[in-house]
């Protein structure tokens, strides 16, 4: 064979292999088998314990119980999830059922009314009374765009009490007491607070929103939107100054700005930091993985050595013990599905199931979320199933820290909260002062309001 012939034969062979791979991969047509096919965009952190199990316990179970529905699920987490959602909205090709936020992070889904109002579905099935009324109030879109998991508090101070005890400290009662711990702990190579600030939303959602509530009061957003207060006023500048102080005093290490979200949980659990700041949802990441039996913090240790609280008394705060919270994330249905179709009925069946008693109880046992469905009796489930101490401690934490103030990316538009997010990181880098950031935020707010 000549060289050219050899190459041609090789190229042909390669072509056949490649095409045969694609021939194998042809998708099965669901409608031909009489099934309704639903595309689902799911939000799941696969690095958390019990995530793999959730696929089996929640999703596989649904398909088993509903043989007439075929789910085509896409699992994403963190920024890639949000970016994919934006791309879907832009193209107008939404998945049938999708995980979403009640406001901020899902702004475009709400403003473009890309999802259906779920209230008529609840009413039709007589399910309205099954849900905590606060969780089914109208959302950013002006209606019930997603059926929420529950109520989420975005700030939680995880305390490693063992580290504190070993260094002669009690659980702190004020911000200043915490600040006083920085030097003695640092001398032993221990950070005061572990936090992952590489992703810009973390500081704003998990700490700053709570601080803004403490200085601005429960109704800061109402006052702001009615023009009674500005971002350049004392309440906001003071809040920014507190974050600045936390970085300057070493309470939060500036290195945290190069720490990817979730990466310092292990360091905190192993005692490299006395405190860890995240949202309430992260309790799940410390619990035992049912499949492997391993936990970042063992149940005994959860009981004895760890506490869940909020940052205590800030200097000059106008309300005490408050926390920042928002109606939880949940499931929405694409507005592209024709009303009254079999697909709509299937999508609603899935959403009902996902926020029904079975799934919400399961998610309570793994710590993934606290229920919005009133049929789930938290105390009873905790007692009967002998759940891990963090779940009982989490229930007590919800009762202890009130009032709940708004979360910034839950009430403000992304044009404004993105400026806050970046500004908080710039304060962290020491590049901008609180007053500078405050005036930039005010500018963004003014320009957003002008365009409304």
């Amino acid at each position, binding site marked *: 064979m000549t060289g050219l012939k050899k190459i041609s034969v090789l190229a042909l062979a390669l072509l056949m292999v490649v095409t045969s791979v694609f021939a194998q991969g042809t998708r099965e047509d669901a409608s031909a088998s009489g099934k309704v096919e639903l595309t689902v965009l799911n939000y799941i952190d696969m690095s958390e314990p019990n995530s793999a199990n959730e696929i089996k316990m929640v999703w596989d179970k649904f398909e088993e119980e509903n043989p007439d529905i075929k789910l085509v699920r896409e699992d994403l987490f963190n920024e890639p999830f949000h*970016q994919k959602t934006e791309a879907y909205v832009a193209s107008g090709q939404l998945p049938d059922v999708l995980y979403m936020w009640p406001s901020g992070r899902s702004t475009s889904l709400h403003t473009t009314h890309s999802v259906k109002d779920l209230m008529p579905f609840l009413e039709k099935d007589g399910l309205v009374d099954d849900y905590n009324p606060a969780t089914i109030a109208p959302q950013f879109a002006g209606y019930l765009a997603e059926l929420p998991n529950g109520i989420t508090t975005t700030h939680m101070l995880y305390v490693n009490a063992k580290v504190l005890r070993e260094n002669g400290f009690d659980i702190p009662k004020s911000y200043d007491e915490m600040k006083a711990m920085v030097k003695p702990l640092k001398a032993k190579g221990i950070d005061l607070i572990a936090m992952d600030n590489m992703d810009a939303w973390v500081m704003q959602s998990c700490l700053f929103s709570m601080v803004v509530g403490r200085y601005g009061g429960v109704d800061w957003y109402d006052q702001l939107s009615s023009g009674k207060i500005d971002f350049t006023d004392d309440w906001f500048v003071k809040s920014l100054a507190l974050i600045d102080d936390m970085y300057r005093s070493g309470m939060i290490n500036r290195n945290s700005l*190069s720490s990817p979200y979730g990466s310092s949980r292990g360091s905190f659990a192993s005692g490299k930091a006395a405190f860890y700041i995240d949202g309430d949802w992260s309790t799940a990441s410390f619990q035992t993985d049912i499949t492997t039996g391993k936990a970042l913090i063992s149940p005994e240790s959860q009981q004895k050595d760890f506490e869940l609280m909020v940052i205590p008394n800030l200097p000059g705060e106008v309300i005490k013990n408050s926390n920042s919270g928002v109606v939880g994330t949940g499931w929405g249905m694409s507005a592209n599905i024709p009303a009254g179709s079999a697909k709509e009925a299937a999508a609603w069946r899935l959403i009902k199931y996902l926020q029904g008693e079975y799934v919400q109880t399961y998610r309570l046992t793994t710590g993934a979320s606290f229920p919005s469905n009133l049929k789930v009796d938290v105390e009873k489930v905790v007692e009967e199933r002998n759940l891990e101490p963090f779940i009982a401690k989490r229930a007590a934490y919800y009762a202890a820290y009130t009032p709940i103030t708004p979360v910034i990316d839950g009430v403000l538009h*992304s044009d404004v909260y993105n400026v806050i997010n970046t500004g908080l*990181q710039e304060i962290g*880098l020491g590049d901008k002062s609180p007053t500078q950031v405050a005036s930039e935020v005010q500018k963004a707010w003014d320009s957003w309001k002008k365009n409304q």
Partner: protein
Amino acid sequence: MPKAHTLADAKREQRRAYWTLVLPGFLVYISVMAFPTIFSIFLSLSDYSGGKLFGGKPVHLVGFKWYQNLFADEYFYLALKNNMWIVLVSVFGQIPLGFFLAYVLYRGIVKFADFFQTMIYLPTVISTVVIGILWKSFFAPYGAFPELVRLFNPQYEYGISNHPMLPVLFVILWMYTGMYLIIFIANLQKIDSAVIEAARIDGATEGQTLRYIILPALSGVLVTTAILAISGSLKSFDLIFVMTAGGPANRTSVLSIYMFDKAFKGAPRYPLANAISTVMVIISFVLIGLTKWAESKFGGRE
């Protein structure tokens, strides 16, 4: 009687053959290159806010509003500056280093040339996402880098430096040098070794051989690699997206990430994102034009 072939017939046939050969490529070029570029310029001048283009909300032309917004944004200049850093590292880091390594291997100055060639090229074949995650955890506050430095200096405290781009630039240098190494080795092998030997017999030193024989022979390749490096640098996205996503506070952002953020982070700003991409195309043309000019002015002939 059969009709005689006239000159006009021949020409017509030639034209038909020309179009038959050119048209498929031309159509592909129009549909995947020219049309999207022109359409992107159109979007950058419009008020399109997502959803269906035809039959959705009507789209209006709004002039250069988005370009004004762009040039008034401090983070645009930050991203542009970072892009220029990457161009510098690519053109004055990867290419000279790639050439140096290729020369060392080609001239047999070190042993185990095949082994080194494979090792240096290896990062190019690993998925960028894997490389990004690898180096992200290497440079993390509780990662291997601070631990390694502490072996030599126990007092060392890892701080977010004033140049958050440094780790990114280092990884870019590490990752892509191998590609230039291969290009240079392939072209060095094309140089007639008899010419080099003749030069050596005539008493030329290693340096003189390099200066008067090898470099002039490679000038075309140098320009090609420079164009590759510049266009590659301007569109660099994946590695930085995985390593830092442009953070903290956009300090490691580049134009492509800045564009992506405007399009997909928070409320979408598609016209602004398209304005950014148009600016990127213009910058690319200017830089490539400069390279071509430099070659015609200073380059040798192959």
